[in-house]
Structures are given as C-alpha cells and as structure tokens.
C-alpha cells in the first residue's frame, strides 16, 4: 500500500487540482484526475520519501483560518505603511528561536511569516535553530517573536511534529 | 455597465504598477533589488493577463498566467542562487 500509494493526501490534492485545472467536473475528468493523482506521486515518490502526517486536523483548520486572515491583514498593513511614507518606518531584523525540527514545518512557518503582517523571513541559521525575520515597522521585537511563536509556530508544531496525536 | 469603467481604471493602475516595478529594475541599486523588481514585473504581468481575460471574456490567457507564475518563480530562484552560490546546479 505504501509503495503503491505513497502520498494519499497528495494524490487527493492532485486529483482535485486536476479538476480545477481542466475547469470541468465530468466523469471523464474525474477518472483522469484520479489516474494522475495516483501516477504522479508514484512517479515522484523518490523525491519525497517521507510521508507527511497530519495529526490535528482541527488545529490545522484553525491555523489556516488565522493564516488567511493574517494575509489580508498583513496586506492592508503593508499597504498602509507604504502609503504612509518611507520615513515613518522602523525596520528591524529580529531573531526567532525555533522549536520546530522538521524542514517542512520550518518551511511552512517561514512562508507564513513572509505572507503575514509586516514580516519577511530572511534567513535560517545553519543549525536551523534560529530564523531571522525582517520587520517593516516594529516597536517591540520580543512581542513580535512571541506572537510569531504563539500564532504560527505552536499550531504548526502540533500539526506536523507532535508524536501521538 | 460598471465593469466597463472599472476595467480601464484597473488597466491603468496595473500598468502604473508595471512602470514602477520597471523603474526599480532599472534603478537598482543592488542586484537583489533588480531581481525583486523582475519578480514583481512577472506578477504585474499576471495581473494584466487576468484583466485581459476578464475584459475580452476569454479563458485563453489563463495558461499564460499560470506559466508566468511558475516561470517567474524559477527565474527568481535561479538568480538568487547565483548570487548566493555562483554555481546554481551543484
């Protein structure tokens, strides 16, 4: 089973995306989508040997909600800051110590940070223990770090890294 | 119709965005600025294509937008990797 269907989640997503892609919800499209959903992960399984496990679906959904809201929030904030003028900005580099261990989770966190209000993840230390984040306008660096850890890192850790769901 | 007034305005805004990005690309001053500007130009182009699609009522521009999204990313990655490592495939 594992060898025949290495990434069921991915297969499902791909089949779904196929339907989006062909922009058509016919039986034929579904058959082909399913076929591709099986075939592509199968063909690329060597690129992605470890299986992704999602432990807390609820946490994930909540995280996604926060994420989307924060994107919008972040965009408005950045827009406002841009319009307000460059002179008012208080940019800074902030180091965020990481509790996450896996590359996938770290990557997702970094992406999340970049898409959400006023922050862009700029660099990951070689030991993968610290993420350097650039913020556009910040007063309290420690508060920002705390917010990042609480809002994004914790749920990500729960979803992707916590043993024994 | 409302769309017929909105779309030209949108065109103008996106075109202006395109110009600003291009200005940054020419202006620099550093290589990352120019890469960022090129990346932004790609995204601006997607916006233009989406507008064009709505305007002309044609879905034919969708693949181009999709491809621009993909290719723009690859270009940016390659350019950055070059700045970081020189050897982009090592």
């Amino acid at each position, binding site marked *: 089973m594992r060898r025949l269907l290495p990434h069921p989640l991915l297969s499902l997503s791909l089949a779904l995306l196929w339907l*989006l892609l062909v*922009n*058509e*919800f016919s039986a034929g499209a579904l058959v082909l989508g399913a076929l591709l959903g099986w075939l592509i992960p199968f063909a690329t399984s060597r690129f992605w040997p470890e299986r992704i496990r999602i432990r807390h679906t609820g946490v994930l959904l909540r995280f996604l909600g926060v994420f989307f809201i924060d994107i919008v929030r972040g*965009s408005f904030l*950045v*827009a406002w*800051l841009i319009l307000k*003028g460059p002179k008012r*900005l208080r940019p800074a*580099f902030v*180091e965020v110590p990481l509790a996450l261990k896996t590359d996938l989770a770290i990557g997702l966190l970094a*992406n999340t*940070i*970049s*898409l959400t209000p006023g922050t*862009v*993840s*700029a*660099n990951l*230390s*070689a030991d993968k223990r610290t993420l*350097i984040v*650039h913020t*556009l306008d910040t007063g309290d660096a420690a508060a920002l770090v705390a917010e990042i850890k609480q809002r994004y890192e914790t749920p990500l850790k729960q979803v992707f890294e916590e043993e024994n769901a | *119709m*409302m*769309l017929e007034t*909105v*779309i030209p305005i*949108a*065109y103008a*805004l996106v075109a*202006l*965005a395109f110009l*600003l*990005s291009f200005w*940054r690309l020419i202006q620099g001053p*550093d*290589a*990352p600025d120019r890469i*960022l*500007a090129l990346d*932004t130009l790609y*995204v601006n182009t*997607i*916006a233009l294509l*989406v507008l064009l*699609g*709505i305007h002309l009522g044609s*879905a034919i521009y*969708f693949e181009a*937008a*999709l491809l621009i*999204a993909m290719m723009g*990313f690859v270009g*940016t990655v390659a350019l*950055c990797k070059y*700045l*970081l490592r020189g050897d982009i495939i090592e």
Partner: protein
Amino acid sequence: MIDILLSLLILTGAIFTLIGSLGLARLRDFYTRLHGPTKATTLGVGCLLIASAVHFSVREEGVSLHEVLVTLFLFITAPVSAHLLAKAALHLKVKSLAALPAQDTSTAPDPALQRDPAD
C-alpha cells in the same frame, strides 16, 4: 450585484498590485522594499484571480475555478522568493536601514564549509 462584487474585487486587486509596486519603488532599502511585492502584490493578484473566477463562473455555464491554481502557486512561491531574495541580500550585505543581524551564522567564514580557494 455580481458586477459590483466584480468591480470591487478588480479595483481592490489593481490597487493592491499598484501599492505593492509603489512600495518597491518608494521604500528606501532593499529589505523594506521586499515587503510590498511579497504581500500587497500577491494579494492584489489574488483578488483579480478571484474576480476572474467569479466572472467566468457566472458568464459561462459551470464553475470556473482554475484561477485558484494560479493563486495557490503564487502563495507558495512568493514567500520562498522573498526568503531567497532576503538571504541573498544579507549575503551581499546590501545596505539596510535596520541594523544587519549581528553574526549571521550561516554566512560566517566557517573553514570547514569554505571552498578551497585554490580551485
């Protein structure tokens, strides 16, 4: 009604697109310029794509959702691009309004990680 929604989406999208580029053009160091395109432009294009999806779903029979794919793509790639750009800028020590991070461990001249200068 749909027209209003569409118009709103289109306008919002276009404005965000513009603001992103405006930030790129106006802000005064690379790191701050990075924020505009990463967020505002991405959202702007997202809005336009949604507008497109709505437009085609309404005008033609059947739902048109393939625009979601482009959006998804952008949302995955934009932060990666931003990250790499920032990383490159830090590596090049591009001048910054904020103090550059004190000791960047990954770019430190670790002899074990250095290439042999002879080659």
